[in-house]
């Protein structure tokens, strides 16, 4: 009899442990990030990143603001003397930031904002259009700096190496 009580007690403890298990483990929702946001917030991140990028790194050449700095050689790592005063050398120290900035800080957030706006009910075409204009501008900068760049396969989580 004593033995049976022990078995029953043990079995019930284990059963109760397993039954509540599924709910108990459901804690993997991050309190640090949002699962959905308004596309305007992605747009604001993207546009601000774009604005921050535009007068910095390699992109500040056309800006009058940079005139003083350009006169001293600017970001040209060997100043204007080498290899010749007529050449600007694109340095790996800078253009990597433009690539990262335009694809990973600007592009992906715009693309996500477009997806969210177009899938919203009702469709938010105005928001999508604003994003597309800025995205086009970003691609203009990308091709200016790098020439041919990935487009159709880029910013697609299915494609690891566009």
């Amino acid at each position, binding site marked *: 009899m004593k033995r049976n009580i022990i078995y029953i007690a043990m079995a019930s403890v284990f059963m109760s442990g397993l039954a509540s298990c599924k709910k108990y*483990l459901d*804690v993997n929702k*991050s309190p640090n*990030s949002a699962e*959905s946001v308004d596309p305007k917030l992605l747009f604001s991140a993207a546009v601000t990143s774009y604005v921050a990028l535009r007068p910095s*790194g390699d992109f500040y050449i056309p800006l009058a603001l940079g005139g003083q700095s350009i006169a001293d050689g600017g970001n040209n790592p060997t100043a204007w003397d080498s290899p010749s005063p007529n050449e600007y050398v694109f340095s790996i120290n800078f253009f990597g930031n433009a690539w990262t900035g335009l694809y990973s800080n600007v592009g992906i*957030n715009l693309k996500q904002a477009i997806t969210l706006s177009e899938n919203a009910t009702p469709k938010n075409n105005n928001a999508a259009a604003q994003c597309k204009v800025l995205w086009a501008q970003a691609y203009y900068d990308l091709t200016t700096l790098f020439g041919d760049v990935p487009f159709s396969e*880029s910013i697609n989580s299915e494609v*690891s190496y566009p």
Partner: protein
Amino acid sequence: MKKILLLVLFFLPALVMLGQSRTITGKVTNPDGKPVSFATVTVKGTSVAVSADVNGDYSIQAPPRAVLVFSATSFQTTEVNIGTQTTISAVMNSREVLGEVVVTALGISRAQKSLGYSTTTLKSEELTKARETNIINSLAGKVAGVIVTSQSGTVGGSSKIIIRGVNTMNNISTNGNGQPIFIVDGLPINNGAPQINTVSPNAANPAPQGSNAADFGNRGGDINSDDIESITVLKGAAATALYGSRAKDGAIIITTKKGKKGQTSVTLNSSARMDQVMKLPELQNEYAQGNQGVYNLANTNGWGPKISEVQDKTFPDFLGRQVTLKAYPDNVKDFYKKGSTFINSVSFDGGNETGDYRFGYTNSKETGVIPGEKMSKNNIAFNAGKNIFKGLDIRTSINYARTTSDGRPIQSANNLSVIQSIILGLPRTVDINEVRDNYFDPITNQQITLTPGRAGNNPYWVVNNNKFSNTVDRVYGNAIITYSPVKWLTISDNIGTDFYYEFRKGVTRPGTIGALTGNFFTANIFNQIINNDLIVTASKQITQDLDLKVIVGHNVLQQQFRREQSDAQGLTVDNLYSFANAGTVSTNNGSTKQRLVGAYGDIGLSYKNFLFLNVTGRNDWSSTLPIGNNSYFYPSVSSSFLFSELLPNSKWLNYGKLRGSWANVGSDAAPYNLAFAYLTLPSAYAQYSLNIQFPFNGLLGFIVPNSLPNANLKPQNQTSFEFGAELKMFNSRVNLDVTYYSSKTKEQIISLNVPRSTGFFSKVINAGSLENKGIEATLGLVPVKTRDITWGVDINFFKNKQTAQLPAEINSYTLQGGFSGLAIKTKSGEPFAIWGTAWQRDSLGNIVIDASTGLRKTVADQNLGDLYPEWTMGINNTFSYKNLSLSFLVDIREGGVIYSNTSSVLRTSGLAKETAINRDKIIIDPGVILDPVTNKFIPNTVPVQSMQDYWSQFTSANTEGNIYNASYVKLREVRVSYRLPSSILGKVKFIKGLELGLEARNLWIIKSYVPHIDPEVNLFGSASLGEAVEFNSVPSSRSYGVNLRIKI
């Protein structure tokens, strides 16, 4: 019986001489109350001895307050303090023949002989002499298969422990970084070293404040060595398989001290030690600061004129005076102080038939070698057990640890308050005493810098003003209820929690160069573990020869981490570190929670006490993996065979055992790696320009995560096997333990870098595998053993080979990006290695020289050497003569490389001793140049313009120039101790034992290949997989002092 009678008669005169002796009578029994026949009873410290009779009854003459020692074959020797009593009944616990008991996974005690895997146990004796304030350091060099690396010389700094090689490429897991789990009395506790990224002290370069930058220590350091009875290192997965998903990196099983039945005692243990910088850089003392031989106060370096040649001239010094130049050879040495360590502990313990208790208090106070660096630690431990009624026992253990520290030095780079970088850059002509006395100008209220251009900070400004401190309040403890309703069944439940609150603060005073308006940060960290284990054990003798033991268990584990931090920039009022005083304050927070439910079982069979088999299985359900993949099963099998039991008794072989095991375990992911979720963007990055801070015009920015999560993540999977042998020969004078092991961890959860044109920086995937194979050997020798003299040698050896396998499309995998092109990477078929810029070489290995400058050419991204040693060895010698004993531990590491930034700084700045050579000459660097005509390499003929140009090649950007062989031989520990003989103690009635010791740690680097630094440091800290990089780390220290232990 006759013999005993003779013995008694022989000692009778002695008894008569001890005039005040009384007759003590009593009975010797086993725990079940049955008599122990013919036990030997002796009065401790004398040669008075009698034998109990067949019923366990005895009678002996003993002085008051003496200690009776009871010994009998197959029983543990027991001591009882008689006090003023005249009737003493002793209970003796049985001891299996050669039956050392080892605490294994989940606190299950098992006989050493039955284990099918390798374990090592360190007893409290090992831990309380030459005590380390960080318990992990006391394992260094003592256990085969274990590598301990202290991360810096910071007081209370962190240490990293790796068992049998790193099994993880996973730099995103919470229990990642390849360190074992820590278990105290069955409760898993936290050994984290959380990094928090602060915008202070320099908004453009967020500084990780954790074990790198300022080293706040690893939380395993909270454990107090005086409260520990034993530490068992479980190395292989088979040993830890019952821990399931947390088992793959091994386990450190700590058992705390308990009160002993039948005696009440008070133990005092005091240590006082002095700490000194272990290795100072070798500096030149011939050249002053400047550029290409011309004195310039603006250059904090050694490229100025030769001091002896300009004695007829005067130059301005940093205080604006015109002085004749003079070298101060000790200015770096004198910056460092002598540190001190005081550890005082007291404990009370006792017990009777039904209960026991122990209370311990330890206070440690340390000051470091950097001025202003200090730490204090208070530990309170309470452990009590009680038998409520027959079959029901309860035990509670509770530990409180409080650590406070101040002045933790800033290490690493990108911060003008990094103290080592300032000290190593001190020109040879600067008097450190003047720097100390003149760091602040009371008239202008400004810092006095070493250069007129105010390019760097005065070191004393930094140590006196820019303080990084932390306070940790930690409680860990558990309650165990054990109920044994019938003899064959035990049900026990172990519930416990470990939580700590840590407050960190780092301030940079306004006026600090690099942060003129000042800043500070505060952070609150909370970490909690709640664990419950319900274990049912049933044992049954199936036949006369076959025993069965079945364990079934259920485990619930919850881990929680929370952090809130605020960074304040732009302080208005000096010396006021209040958020209300700041121009901008940015606050952020984060938290994680994960849960695990496990069910496990262990079936153990033993046949005739020489053949043992254990099969375990555990199923885990983890909250961090996708619902479909979150349940996984881990089995293990282990077996041991005592072949010596089958052999005829032989003189040379006392004990022989073969063992083997196989296990399959794994681990889950860090929380929140599955779902796609948006994050806030704190600021938009602008290179060489001003970042744009959010909120921008009142609007927040959200971004998609930089790392693409993976909704189909699978648990990592490790398969391992080991086999080994244990031999005790020649009366246990030669003891050998050899193990071969192999483990392969597949389905690594890694964050793989992807091209940024995907929009992501990285993605989380299951890919790659890591293999570790190696040999562990422990050899114990007792070459000399006489009545008075014993000489013992213990040697442990460990060799490991690590190999990574990556998917075909991944060329290499970066574990840790670093500084100036340095990275820790791995490729398929290779171990972890340092990669970086290397000298360009021709096909014969000659360095290629640039024909236009005479300087070396470089190539980027080359393998510069393995991270981990090829093998390590520890040799411990113990000599004892009567009550005097001497022991010393030599620790050897062979193989692996280290990158030294200290060496880079000292060489490029012309301060290292070697840079003084050839200054007045023009040298030609041996190497080859490319002949433009024949397009072939010919010997170099192009000279380097100056030694300053030559040494400038050794900047941190040229990784190879600062890579060294990390092998070393160290005298790790020396202890001399003298136990006061009882003949002297006998006069002081109330003292049971007194031991006096001299102790020294890290006494001497016998052999090292790295100039200027101790090769045992690490920038990345214990929380990271990165290793073998030194970047302005606080130098490690040598400590020596005295120790006094009294037992009352």
